[in-house]
């Protein structure tokens, strides 16, 4: 090991329904259909993983650990992270029965507990998951740990002594640059980097990397839901348009609707 071991990074990755899948709402409106649907790593978390791996490659980080809170299948997601270049993984297994009731507050509490034992210098999370779009976990984690937070990061530059991070944030209508001292929580935005593809040889190699399993009970976190999902609805369907034959037709139709006089 080198004298300066660099930052220790913890990266969160969530297993979500693949971005390319057409999501269907369950007939009873209690949620969405997840059985037999392709899942993959949340794209914003992929960006977080990529950032950690890049910092490792630049020798800015010493160790990169991935963590996923989710069902047994989340291990596949963690394998993907390991294939991208993460050193080891932690899986906090949630029983399928409790999975639907799992909310960001629980995830952030679990992550905070793991941070107590892992003592990372930096936690990188995706800014939000593409399934529930909560955009809360990172912020809640920073609050629970009482660490500084830099959300929607599009650039992360550690200072010479790795005690500070200069983070460029995407805010409404522009960019904001802030300095945060480590340990800190950073959430990744879309333009932070372009994640690499986890190729088959790397997935195979990743199977040899360590993956530890934990349970919420072990971490002493209560998973009692704080919110209740009342109903999940499909987005409104776009109404079909109509073709008009001529300009006169168009004007006539517009007049009918009272859009032109």
């Amino acid at each position, binding site marked *: 090991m080198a004298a300066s071991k660099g930052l220790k990074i913890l990266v969160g990755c969530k297993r979500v329904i693949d*971005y*390319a899948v057409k999501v269907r709402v369950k007939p009873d409106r209690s949620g969405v259909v997840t059985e037999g649907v392709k899942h993959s790593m949340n*794209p*914003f978390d992929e960006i977080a993983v990529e950032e950690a791996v890049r910092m490792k490659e630049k020798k800015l980080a010493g160790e990169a650990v991935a963590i996923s809170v989710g069902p047994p299948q989340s291990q596949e997601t963690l394998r993907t992270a390991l294939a991208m270049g993460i050193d080891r993984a932690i899986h906090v297994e949630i029983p399928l029965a409790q999975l639907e009731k799992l909310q960001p507050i629980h995830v952030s509490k679990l992550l905070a507990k793991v941070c107590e034992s892992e003592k990372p210098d930096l936690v990188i999370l995706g800014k939000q998951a*593409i399934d529930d779009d909560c955009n809360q976990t990172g912020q809640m984690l920073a609050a629970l740990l009482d660490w500084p937070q830099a959300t929607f990061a599009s650039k992360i530059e550690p200072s010479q002594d790795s005690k500070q991070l200069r983070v460029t944030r995407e805010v*409404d*209508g522009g960019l904001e640059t802030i300095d945060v001292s480590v340990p800190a929580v950073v959430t990744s935005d*879309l333009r932070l980097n*372009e*994640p*690499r*593809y986890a*190729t*088959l*040889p790397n*997935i195979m190699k990743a199977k040899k990397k360590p993956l530890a399993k934990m349970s919420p009970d072990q971490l002493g976190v209560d998973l009692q839901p704080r919110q209740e999902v009342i109903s999940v609805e499909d987005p409104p369907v776009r109404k079909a348009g109509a073709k008009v034959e001529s300009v006169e037709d168009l004007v006539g139709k517009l007049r009918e609707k009272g859009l032109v006089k």
Partner: protein
Amino acid sequence: MTSPPPQLRSQVIALYKNLLYMGRDYPKGYAYFRDRLKSVFLKNSGVKDPDQIKVLIGRGEFVIKELEALYMLRKYRALKHRYYEKDEATTSATTSSSDKKAPTKTQ
């Protein structure tokens, strides 16, 4: 008939497996990709010249790079469309309005 060196054979098999794995994410579906991949490999299965096999492996590796780029771009575009369309509209509106301003001044 002389057969090509065995290490080339394993390279070709590895290439086929890697491509097959990537096909699972192909936009037109795995079956579409797999059928075409198989027919392309079958078409060149008669090639015995080691140099030509190397050229073909190189081409396969190029396809892997292309597919990686395609998947990355597709995902990036999908997310941008889903989460950033509004600010994209405002930025394009501001740029187009500033574009429009310039000619009106000259007029």
